[in-house]
């Protein structure tokens, strides 16, 4: 009697036990690595294709020997594709969602005051990256905790650090900025720079690009830079603005033409265009930090709301040497010692 009962109990428990046992066996096999054999499935939604941040995210798992299966989707700057990705992620039942950029993050995860379980990912944990204003964009209420099933990283260097870096290169008394009046990020940057200027002793001249048919006009950029130069601006600040990022060559080219040193808050204008210096967290590093947070959720089972949103610790100072030479404004020796020098002409 007793034996039969025990057998029944075991059979009843079997469906529960079996995966656990299987898991244990597999874990035993790969015990050295301390990882489960079944890879974690991560659904990655990008906005501008595969780039450094996504690469850093992927490489982190490779370097840490954490098996992952990445399902990669690119919105290709088209917002309308995103609802389809939400549905697909839910259908696949992935372990984690990765979102790139403010638009993708807002569309996939909703804002904290407007989450719709129908339209947004809610049950699957998510990490976001490359959101310039996580609080301003209402992705999270504050950096300590999202209060929901997501966490992520910020990638913007604090404005004061940027200004100090800029002015350690050149003690400018007047900074200039060309911005897209339609981009909220730019206005935030203007406010911050103006306030800091009162404390640090400089002033800011900001020029909005012209709007043609409600769209910012690329052709008006060089003129705005010339106006800044005429206003006695000594250093051009390039905010992390999508429109300016897209048209970075026009902007930095104009700066060079008018002999205006330029500082970029993002790495693209320095590495892939002609901004003179940048103080940034490298996208690759940001990707790695985001992957670290994903590891906390997947491997260490930390609830996403318990993981604060923060930025990498190490600031990258990138100096674009061809531009420096063209301008003849040389960096102080100590800054040069700290900086990564980007000098494609010099060769390896």
């Amino acid at each position, binding site marked *: 009697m007793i034996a039969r009962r025990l057998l029944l109990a075991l059979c009843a428990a079997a469906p529960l036990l079996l995966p656990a046992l299987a898991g244990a066996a597999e874990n035993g096999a790969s015990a050295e690595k301390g990882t489960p054999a079944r890879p974690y499935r991560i659904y990655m939604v990008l906005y501008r294709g595969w780039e450094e941040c996504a690469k850093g995210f992927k490489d982190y798992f490779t370097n840490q020997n954490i098996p992952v299966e990445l399902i990669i989707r690119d919105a290709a700057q088209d917002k309308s594709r995103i609802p389809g990705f939400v549905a697909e992620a839910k259908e696949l039942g992935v372990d984690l969602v990765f979102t790139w950029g403010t638009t993708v993050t807002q569309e996939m995860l909703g804002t904290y005051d407007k989450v719709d379980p129908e339209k947004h990912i809610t049950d699957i944990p998510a990490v976001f990256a490359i959101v310039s204003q996580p609080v301003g964009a209402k992705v999270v209420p504050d950096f300590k905790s999202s209060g929901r099933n997501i966490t992520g990283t910020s990638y913007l260097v604090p404005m004061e650090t940027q200004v100090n870096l800029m002015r350690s290169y050149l003690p400018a008394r007047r900074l200039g900025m060309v911005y897209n009046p339609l981009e909220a990020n730019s206005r935030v940057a203007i406010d911050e720079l103006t306030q800091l200027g009162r404390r640090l002793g400089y002033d800011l001249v900001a020029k909005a690009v012209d709007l043609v048919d409600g769209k910012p006009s690329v052709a008006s950029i060089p003129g705005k830079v010339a106006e800044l130069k005429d206003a006695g601006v000594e250093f051009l600040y390039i905010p992390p603005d999508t429109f300016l990022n897209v048209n970075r060559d026009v902007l930095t080219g104009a700066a060079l033409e008018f002999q205006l040193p330029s500082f970029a808050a993002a790495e693209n204008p320095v590495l892939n265009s002609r901004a003179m210096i940048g103080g940034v967290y490298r996208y690759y590093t940001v990707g790695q930090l985001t992957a670290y947070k994903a590891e906390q959720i997947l491997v260490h089972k930390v609830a996403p709301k318990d993981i604060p949103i923060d930025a990498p610790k190490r600031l990258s100072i990138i100096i674009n040497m061809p531009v420096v030479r063209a301008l003849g404004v*040389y960096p*102080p*020796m*100590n800054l040069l010692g700290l900086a990564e*020098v980007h000098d494609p002409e010099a060769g390896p």
Partner: protein
Amino acid sequence: MRLDSSRSLLVRLFILAVLVLVPPTAIVSYRALGAFEQGMAPEMDKKAAIVGQDLRTQLERAVGYGVPLERMVGMTEFFAPVLAANPELRYLAVSDPDGRLLYLHGAETAELQADFRTAGFGTGRDGHKISVGPYFDVALPVQAKGGAVIGHLHVGFDRAYVTDRLANIFLDVAVVLSVSLIVAFEVLLFVVFFNITGPLKVAGWVVDRVRRGDFEHVPSVWSGDEVGHFVRAMSNSVRRTDEAYRGLMAYIEEVRTAHFDAGVVARVAEVADRVRFLFRFSPDGRPAPLGQRMATDIRLPLFLFVFAEEMSRSFMPLYAGGLATPLPGLSVEMMTALPIAFFMAAIALASPWAARVTERVGSSRAFVMGMVPAALGYVMTGFVFGLFDLLLWRVVSGVGYALVTVAAQTYISQAAREEQRAQGLGVYVGAVLTASICGTGIGGLLAERIGFGATFFVSGALVVLSGVLLARIMAESEPPAVVAVAARPKFRRLLANWRFTVLMLFAAVPAKMALTGFLFFLVPMILWQSSLTLSEIARMVVLYPLVMAVTSAIASRLSDRFQWRAGLVALGGLIGGIGLLAPVVLDGTLPIAIAIIALGLSHGLSASPQLALIPDVCWTECRAFGRVSIMALVRTIERAGSVAGPLIAAAFIPMWGLNGAVIGLGVLVLALAAFFAIASGAYGSGPHIETEEETA
């Protein structure tokens, strides 16, 4: 230090000690310095190479990126931290191929330019070395990418640096040498006094008594050496004489009781009476051992003990400052001052208790008892983690210090009854002053080499050594404690004596305030900020006891000869106060040295006249309460000044900075001294008896 009849012997011994100790040490030190000097030059070249190559690599990197050598930016900020990290480097410079200076930090262009233009550094090897004015210049070529030399990086050394280093080491050696001489001499004094002159002096007393027919005493000496044999032989003679006397008396008694002839009996009785009249013998047939309790006996233990305390003199505020963490309502400066103030307060508060303990257990035992908290305090001070445990252990040490000093003074004053008082006091002051000189000098030197903690352990070890020595002496003789229980002086009655009050508040207290506030507290911090090394600080602080020792010898003679006491006290106070104002007109460490010397001069002039003045100004009180208890009270009042000194100085620092605090303290001390100078004019001279009339 009075050497009385043994003076010539001791002088000869001292000369012998100097001859034996100094030449070999001097020769060895001289050789070592030579080797050191030879080793310095290549060491400097190596340093130039390491520093220079690193800087050159960065310059060449910039040049490689297309920054023209003559258009480098931020070179001052680039050079400054390197110079700050390498004190032996004087300047860093870059010159173009013609020797024109492009950048220079740490020297004046005019000093170098002319020599650089003519030097022709060429294109060749590293480390082209030239002498430029007061510098050595090592040049390293800077190359462009193609290998062309486009300029030179220059690393400049101060030529005086080597000489400075050597002078520093030489001075350290001199301090060690002088201190070992003094210690050797103290040990010699101890050995001579304890083993030779002491027993012989006792033997002399016994012989003197015997000459006068007094056979009641034998010298009490147990040592096994020749002196011991001699003294024992003498004791045996005395005992034999005593036995012969008893034999004679027994015989006389026999004759007196048994003889038939009354005339003979009368004659014999007469003989007995005559013998009894001429000679005195111990009534119980045992000649009493005559102790050899002399003030000089405890000189060495006292010396070692004070030595231990003085070791931390020049760095205590630095040690405390390193432990102080800001607390609300308590500045770091104030916390740094607390260990000194607590130590002084512990001595002041524990002294009356120490006097009672000494009365109860005897001075030698009290001395040894004091060693226990003192040694424990020092060792634990070396282990402390924070300011509060430091305070605790300083208080423990202070209690030990109080017990030891009170016991030592009591011991000396008891022993001095048999000798001269002045000599006894001289022993105390001499031991404390020499220990202060030696301890301070060695303490800083040691702390620099083995660290603060380890130096405190050495202090602890010295106290233990002193205790062992003392325990040995105690085994020899411990006469019963006979301290007259002094009447407690009535504060109010004493303070009603305005001369006494003025002397205390306007001379004694400011003197101690200047000592603890300035010398003990501010001086180490100021000199440390001026980036002097610990041994340099100690050498500065040691100026005080040195000057004081010399001055006080002269001052006490002056005061005795001319009865000029109040005047000297006033003069001393003014000199000390004015000295503290030296930072008003001068910068750097020189005014501090001047102030220290002035303070030594001040206290040297005023210390002994001030002591001598007390029986003068409170003659009736001394008679009523006893000099000893009046002196104890004087010390307690003085200690209040010692406690206040560092606290006042610490309160000044946040307002006026370190040098400002010195000046503030100087103004305070000078004002008080000036008041005393004016008031002392009304002292008159000689003993004052009007107070007696008032109270009568």
